[in-house]
């Protein structure tokens, strides 16, 4: 095939309108968020003491850390999808790491030493260790299936 002929094929393929990757990713984020929220409400539900919890800064710090991670990960995801990422995108995660370490230190100072083990590892660690990889695998295979059908 000559390059000029390939160009013709590419021009013919261009009509399939595609939106910029940032819009596609934002849409995926919204859809994923809604699905997660529904699953959360069906399966877990909002804790009864949510209002007093939100009033404590230690709880807010947890929510805040997750939101910071979300914003940074979204930007990083976009940068990594580009062939020419600007600067050193990974460095942006530094802020998140600092925040997480600070929050951890604060938490350890506030709670009694005897409960550190449970606080750090939790009581469901074995469930998490098996559930997270299985879910990841299921999502991975679903994703592969979608790609091959496209």
């Amino acid at each position, binding site marked *: *095939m*000559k*390059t*000029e*002929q*390939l*160009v*013709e*094929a*590419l*021009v*013919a*393929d*261009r*009509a*399939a*309108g*595609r*939106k*910029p*990757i*940032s819009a*596609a990713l934002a849409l995926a984020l919204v859809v994923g968020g809604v699905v997660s929220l529904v699953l959360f409400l069906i399966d877990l539900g909002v804790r009864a003491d949510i209002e007093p919890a939100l009033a404590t800064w230690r709880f807010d710090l947890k929510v805040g850390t997750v939101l910071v991670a979300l914003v940074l990960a979204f930007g990083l995801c976009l940068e990594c*999808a*580009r*062939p*020419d990422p*600007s600067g050193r995108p990974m460095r942006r995660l530094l802020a998140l790491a600092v925040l997480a370490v600070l929050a951890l230190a604060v938490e350890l100072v506030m709670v009694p030493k005897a409960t550190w083990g449970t606080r750090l590892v939790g009581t469901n660690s074995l469930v998490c260790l098996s559930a997270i990889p299985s879910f990841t695998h299921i999502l991975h295979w679903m994703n592969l299936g979608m790609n091959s059908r*496209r």
Partner: protein
Amino acid sequence: MADLNDLSALMRSARQGDDGAYRRLLGEVTVWLRVVVRRGLVSAGRGAADCEDIVQETLLAMHLKRDTWDEARPIAPWLRAIAHHKLADYLRRRGFTDHVDIDDHADAPELAVDVDAAASVDSRQMLASLPERQRRIVQEISLEGRRAADVARGLGMSEGAVRVTLHRALKALAVFYRRDRS
């Protein structure tokens, strides 16, 4: 050779649905790529025989990933980055691990490019590897210059189905390029 950043206007028009602008854009990029790839190959101590294969692989990548260019940024770094990656991919497949900096060569005087050799070596086998229907559609659109609507009528398919099949075929070609062929 046109300034690469001038191409951003063409890309913008192409995104608005201007076929002519996209054709011109790909033409300009092809001319630039041939020079850059050839220099990259020569500076890596390779023959330029596979030049056109790399040019085509790069064009396919740019096409399939064109939505990763952010209109707010200049287009030249984006083009250079893809060309750089594809050249490095090729050299790595052939067992070459040194750093390739295409910018070192981008400003040198143009090398003569033999346009007669503009048919890539591997793509003939590549086309043959496609499923029958995909191959026919690529051939009719690219070799015979027919429009998607006409091809659809000839094959008794809808125009949308032809476009989807064409897109699949192009993706398959890109995968074929990525495979280790050495």
